[in-house]
């Protein structure tokens, strides 16, 4: 590839790509090759599709694009046929001949393969009409389905690097920071700190300044950063370049998890391509601006997502946070002024520069601007990545976009913000999700994890589960986090086993309160959130465990048993057939009997009974 020597060369390069696209007016098959769809078998689908197109001699007329994550991971592998936007979910190799014959050759839709809406039971044929996508506003994530992440040409063709062009030749550093300030952008890593304030204070400190991307996404169940790294890596580089120009930095780092192999590969490819074409390196586009980016792979410690621990790890030291009485914008990586932002924050930057702060700040709420990507997982019909304007209600996200709770069960709570987020009960379903509203109900935005829980979830067990995770991830440096998490976990484990005592709730609140306010770093201060929020909203469930020795949700095995409701039992034998311990007996059409001595409380009968005749006592 030729090195782009100046801004005219970049423009010509883009126009060239675009004119080729228009010339041919090709059909384009976009096939998701993100980690989720990949696991469902994109590779095989791709191979079969290539062969099938060749068989029909269509290989020159139809372009196949292996893209990053489209977001609707529940239905992978996902195929979208452009320009019509025909949507095929859960595509298998065996579907390919039909798709090629009907849709590609004859322009018809194969209705048997089309998406069926969970609620209306109607078939929907076009991507834009599917409720999961329809209610989203995908300003950050939208290009994921359109571009091949390993091609810089694709990124440039969707106006990639126009924002860089603009800041290099039309804006001063002050104007860049001002634009970010006016946009109201806040850090997407969890804290929600105003991005422009961070940039501005880093710029004011003297020394070799560093721009760092926090791609150490460690929350179980959250993968929006991964999907951006995998699906649109150049947008992250462009964001970092813009910040580097604004604060006067020549070196950048991306700290990314080693467990994200595709993300590492794609971001590496992107950096190499940008260097080759002259968008990273010395004298970028002849603007006298030098900037290069290096990758550092993290070993997977949750605490390394904390800024000071990340920088320690980047230096080659153990990933331990330090007390932040001196901020990293003053003394961070190598004791130098360091600007750290999260992946999603970086990808917002080119959008703001391109479309303007006025446009951007019209999206969202008064104090939280723009959109946020959530990873919607757990007991919800449509799991996947969802990008909505800040302020969108939990109800819209979970019920309209997410399709509600499967198996006609009741919604119980949603945990936002990863393992150290709080659990929000149903009375707050109409809460508009932004940084401040979540904080008010005792949770956090975090990086945008959203775990939906149904009626069969025990909130004490949930708190225990997350603390067990955090116990392993505490770095062990500060006393409240190291010993406090362990103590809280011991109390919760006792409660779940039926050994809870009066005063346990108060002790949890005491230790939790101490951790929340006075631990050394963000891991410790947010660690008690799952405990404190479940006590706040589900105190009666704790009391049932401690006083009545009952687990109302039927999760903590020592604290419940199953019974058969004789009024509801139809004698269908479905449960008796599936019971691994043969604990259920009974003749056809007669009420069955459950032998509590034999029952191991595996819950198979409870799940299988269509008549709700298995009850938790």
């Amino acid at each position, binding site marked *: 590839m030729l090195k782009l020597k100046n801004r005219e060369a970049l423009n010509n390069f883009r126009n060239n790509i675009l004119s080729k696209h228009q010339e041919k007016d090709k059909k384009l098959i976009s096939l998701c090759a993100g980690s989720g769809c990949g696991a469902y078998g994109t590779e095989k689908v791709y191979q079969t599709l290539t062969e099938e197109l060749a068989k029909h001699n269509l290989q020159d007329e139809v372009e196949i694009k292996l893209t990053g994550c489209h977001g609707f991971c529940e239905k992978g592998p996902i195929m979208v046929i452009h320009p019509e936007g025909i949507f095929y979910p859960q595509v298998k190799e065996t579907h390919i001949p039909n798709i090629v014959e009907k849709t590609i050759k004859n322009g018809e839709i194969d209705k048997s393969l089309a998406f069926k809406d969970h609620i209306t039971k109607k078939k929907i044929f076009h991507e834009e009409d599917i409720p999961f996508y329809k209610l989203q506003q995908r300003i950050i994530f939208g290009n994921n389905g359109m571009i091949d992440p390993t091609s810089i040409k694709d990124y440039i063709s969707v106006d990639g690097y126009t924002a860089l062009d603009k800041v290099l030749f039309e804006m001063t550093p002050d104007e860049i920071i001002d634009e970010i300030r006016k946009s109201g952008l806040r850090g997407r890593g969890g804290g929600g700190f105003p991005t422009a304030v961070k940039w501005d204070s880093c710029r004011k400190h003297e020394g070799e300044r560093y721009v760092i991307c926090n791609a150490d996404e460690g929350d179980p169940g959250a993968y929006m950063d991964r999907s951006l790294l995998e699906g649109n890596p150049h947008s992250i580089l462009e964001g970092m370049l813009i910040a580097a120009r604004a604060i006067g930095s020549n070196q950048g780092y991306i700290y990314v998890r080693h467990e994200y192999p595709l993300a590492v590969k794609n971001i590496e490819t992107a950096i190499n391509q940008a260097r080759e074409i002259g968008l990273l390196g010395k004298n970028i586009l002849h603007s006298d601006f030098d900037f290069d980016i290096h990758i550092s792979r993290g070993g997977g*410690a949750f605490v390394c997502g904390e800024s000071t621990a990340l920088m320690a790890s980047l230096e080659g030291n*153990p990933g*331990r946070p*330090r*007390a932040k*009485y001196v901020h990293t914008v003053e003394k961070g990586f190598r004791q130098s002024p360091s600007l750290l932002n999260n992946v999603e924050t970086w990808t917002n930057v080119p959008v703001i520069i391109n479309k303007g702060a006025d446009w951007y700040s019209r999206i969202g709420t008064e104090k939280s601007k723009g959109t946020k990507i959530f990873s919607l997982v757990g007991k919800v019909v449509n799991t996947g990545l969802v990008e909505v304007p800040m302020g969108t209600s939990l109800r819209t996200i979970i019920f309209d976009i997410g399709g509600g709770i499967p198996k006609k069960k009741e919604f119980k709570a949603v945990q936002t913000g990863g393992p150290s987020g709080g659990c929000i009960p149903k009375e707050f379903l109409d809460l508009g999700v932004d940084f401040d509203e979540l904080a008010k109900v005792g949770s956090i935005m975090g990086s945008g994890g959203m775990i939906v829980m149904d009626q069969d979830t025990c909130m004490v067990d949930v708190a225990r589960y997350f603390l067990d995770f955090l*116990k*392993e*991830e*505490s*770095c*062990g*440096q*500060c*006393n*409240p986090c*190291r*010993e*406090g998490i*362990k*103590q809280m976990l*011991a*109390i919760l484990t006792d409660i779940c086993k039926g050994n809870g005592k009066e*005063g346990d709730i108060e*002790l949890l609140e*005491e*230790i939790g309160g*101490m951790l929340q*306010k*006075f*631990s*050394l770093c963000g891991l410790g201060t947010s660690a008690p959130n799952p405990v404190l929020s479940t006590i706040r909203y589900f105190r009666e469930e704790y009391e049932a465990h401690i006083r009545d020795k009952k687990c109302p949700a039927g999760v903590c095995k020592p604290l419940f048993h199953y019974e058969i409701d004789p009024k509801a039992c139809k004698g269908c034998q479905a449960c008796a057939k599936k019971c691994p311990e043969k604990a259920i007996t009974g003749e056809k059409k007669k009420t069955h009997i459950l032998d509590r001595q034999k029952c191991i409380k595996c819950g198979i009968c409870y799940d299988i009974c269509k008549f709700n005749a298995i009850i938790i006592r």
Partner: protein
Amino acid sequence: MSKIIVDEQYLEIIEGTNLLQACLENNIYIPNLCYLKERKEKNASCRLCFVEIEGMPKPVTSCTLDVEDGMVVRTDTPAVRRLQRTAFQLLMSVHEVDCAHCPANKKCELQKIARFLKLGLKPKGLDHSLRELETDHDHPFLEYFPHRCVLCGKCIYVCKKRNGRPYLTFAGRGLDTQISFFGDKDPLKLPCAECLACTLICPVAAIIAKTDT
């Protein structure tokens, strides 16, 4: 000079002095374990030296603050004491209380803090469980007792300062964190026999010279 008020006492302190240091030098005791005057980067990990400062919304660690003119500090508010008691009890939940057989007896920082906070040494209501490893005999000159250690890190700092490089480090994560010796075990190549700085600085006799056992 900065004029500050600590617990209704008027003090004149050189501007920029560490607040915890200033208090200690003026006989105002604030419980602490990991603070060292000469260490530039404060560990702030024992979470004991809390104070309340007028104008700040919640208690703060005094070791991470410098004195500023006009500061009004309280070291003994109920909020501060409550925090210190919880933090101290958490520390004691992994400490083997066997003072009679401990070389630190009567000069132990933990005994001093317990007396000051009017607390017993055995934590009430908390799960008391000790680390897996009881004693580390690995080092030719030193013995390490994880059941006594409060992980203040002072030993690592003085070792590095005295010898140009540390022979000690934090090892492990989370609950398994402990102090570990690393590098050459050849007694002739170790400065430890003459140094013993770590044993002198340890507030709880978690590292002692083999000759003392």
